[in-house]
């Protein structure tokens, strides 16, 4: 059943995806409203799917596909928070495709139930997953915002205020969206790594820093921290901030991919 709900959600997100492509070429209030409603409906289905999954077996979230589903949901939740605060759907241009892709992969097929040795640390494990994924979702949004910032900056600098991308919010608004999601995501990411270490410590007795997953996760955290610090100290934004956000995003993807090479951090395949 959970998979069915997820597929319903996917159908709703498809509207968002179409909006994302559409919004690049022209503005339509009506379409952004439709996309928003479709996305909200999608979130409802998605939520039902996640709850059902959680109720059936708490550890189901630890399969790759279900984890992707959770990440997609959290990214969408961030998008909705931004919409509530700033009344703009433009981050959807980046968020919708990412969410659609994650949900699509997650909705492909059912995953086998995981048998892990972490059963005794179930609470920590769930905390780790939720914290880390909230951090990831914030990162997705801040990455999206920095791309939009570049787009808007370029438009203002080129002094050809074409109507093509006039749907973008003001530069300072985009900047705030990016900065706030960065600030919000950082503690989640940090706590997520800490809880992860606790689980690993208690399961294996030590943390293997040569493991690719752990190494890359740390790298991602360092880039994340550099972003926060430079922004805090010298207000880096625009091109430099976008480069950093891209680095953090790439690091996050690589860290994610490392699940497939890591010996200690494995999802059920």
């Amino acid at each position, binding site marked *: 059943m959970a998979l069915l709900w997820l597929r319903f959600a996917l159908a709703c997100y498809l509207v968002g995806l179409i909006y994302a492509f559409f919004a690049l070429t022209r503005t339509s209030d009506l379409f952004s409203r439709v996309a928003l409603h479709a996305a909200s409906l999608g979130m409802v289905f998605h939520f039902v799917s996640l709850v059902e999954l959680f109720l059936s077996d708490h550890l189901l979230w630890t399969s790759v596909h279900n984890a992707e589903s959770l990440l997609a949901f959290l990214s969408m939740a961030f998008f909705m928070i931004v919409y509530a605060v700033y009344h703009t759907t433009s981050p959807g241009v980046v968020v919708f495709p990412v969410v659609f892709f994650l949900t699509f992969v997650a909705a492909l097929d059912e995953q086998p139930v995981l048998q892990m040795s972490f059963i005794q640390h179930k609470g920590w494990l769930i905390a780790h997953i939720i914290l880390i994924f909230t951090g990831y979702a914030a990162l997705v949004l801040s990455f999206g915002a920095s791309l939009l910032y570049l787009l808007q900056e370029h438009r203002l*600098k080129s002094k050809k205020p074409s109507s093509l991308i006039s749907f973008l*919010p*003001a*530069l*300072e608004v985009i900047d705030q969206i990016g900065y706030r999601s960065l600030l919000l995501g950082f503690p989640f990411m940090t706590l997520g790594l800490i809880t992860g270490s606790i689980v690993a410590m208690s399961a294996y007795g030590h943390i293997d820093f040569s493991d690719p997953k752990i190494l890359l996760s740390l790298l991602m955290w360092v880039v994340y921290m550099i972003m926060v610090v430079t922004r805090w100290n*010298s207000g*880096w*934004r*625009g*091109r430099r901030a976008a480069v950093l956000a891209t680095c953090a995003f790439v690091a996050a993807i690589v860290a994610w991919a490392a699940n497939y090479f890591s010996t200690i951090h494995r999802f059920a395949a």
Partner: protein
Amino acid sequence: MRYQLIGVNHKSAPLEVRERLAIPDSRLPDCCRDLSAHPGIEEGMIISTCNRVEMITHTTNGSADLRGFLHDHFHLTAEELDAHLYEFREKDVVRHVFRVASSLDSMVVGEAQILGQVKEAYATARAVGAVRSQLDQLFTRAFAVAKRVRTETAVGSSSVSIASVAVELAKKIFGSLQGKTVFIVGAGKMSELAARHLIAHGCESIFVSNRTYDRAVGLAHRFNGQAIRFDDLYDNCDKADIVITSTGSPQAIFRREHGEQFLSRRKNKPMFFIDIAVPRDVSPEMAKLDGIFAYDIDDLQQAVSSHVADRHHEAELAEAIISSEVERFEAKLHTLDVVPTIVSLQDHLETIRQAEIDRVRSRMGPLTLEQEMAVEALTRGIINKVMHTPITTLKTAAREAEATTVIDVVRRLFNLHDKEKGPASQAERESPAKKKIETRH
């Protein structure tokens, strides 16, 4: 449709001519009354704004002497006036009125003021009874069309003056201008205007700096701001989010190193420079810095004209809407045109029927109730069958160009002309037969 229009506007006539034709508000009601009382005119309305003076009328035969009215009323000779006049009839009047109300005929296409002015003119003429059913229909539709154009196209959405373009750009950078700080460098008229626009949109603190300190103090006083000595300019400039600069300096006063200083002191928060000085006050090198957005007078001008170009594109969409609306209006009027003919045709046949029944009655003596009903049903049935084809033909013809010919033929065949013109015509218009037809439409 016997509409007729005469007028001058900003394209057809120079200001001197428009000035002589302009009618002050106080005299407008009298003028409307005179116009509608002019020979050959049934209804009349006058639009008089600084860019146009137009007389829109509905005439008795479609060719009233509107030029004569203008010559008499304004004491102008034909040589003085005629070269500047334009005149429209019928469908062209409808199109013109729709275009004027939708602000497509305005000097600044899309400006919103004209619709209000037309509405006022309409209300004035209506109040004195110069506008009745025909012009009423036309203008009610024109207002609806104007609204449609405004909602379906972006013809009225962009702003066009340099100061408002500056405000729009500032909003694209900062979002809300609430609480933003403006620094005016070089007290000039244009920078003052731009500053006023920015303040009107929420900017709060104002700094003014000028080589002559006293002028800076004067201007700062007017804005309730703070004057800064020109020597302290670079130390204070980073406090401002928006800098309006218009000094007479032969070299750029803001160079790359200044920009870098400002940005580092502001923690890279963006700054918007509105450079209306010629030669420019902001060096192109500084304008390249991330976080510095500098627009010189040419850039602003370009933004203004790109808005105008956008409007042209939108205006094309609006023209398409207008064309379809003109067709619709025309079709509706034509249908209305055939209604009186159908009504008189029905009344005419009904009179014949009644007369024949009376004749039969007088010959045969009183009929029984059953006989009465049979005769009634029989005669009605015949009339309805006979009427069916002509009425259908009339209704079909109403949608085509041949409408007037068909109406004419039917009127001649049944000799309906005299009845229409007779004293009974008013009563005929109100007859139940008409109501029946109307409900069928």
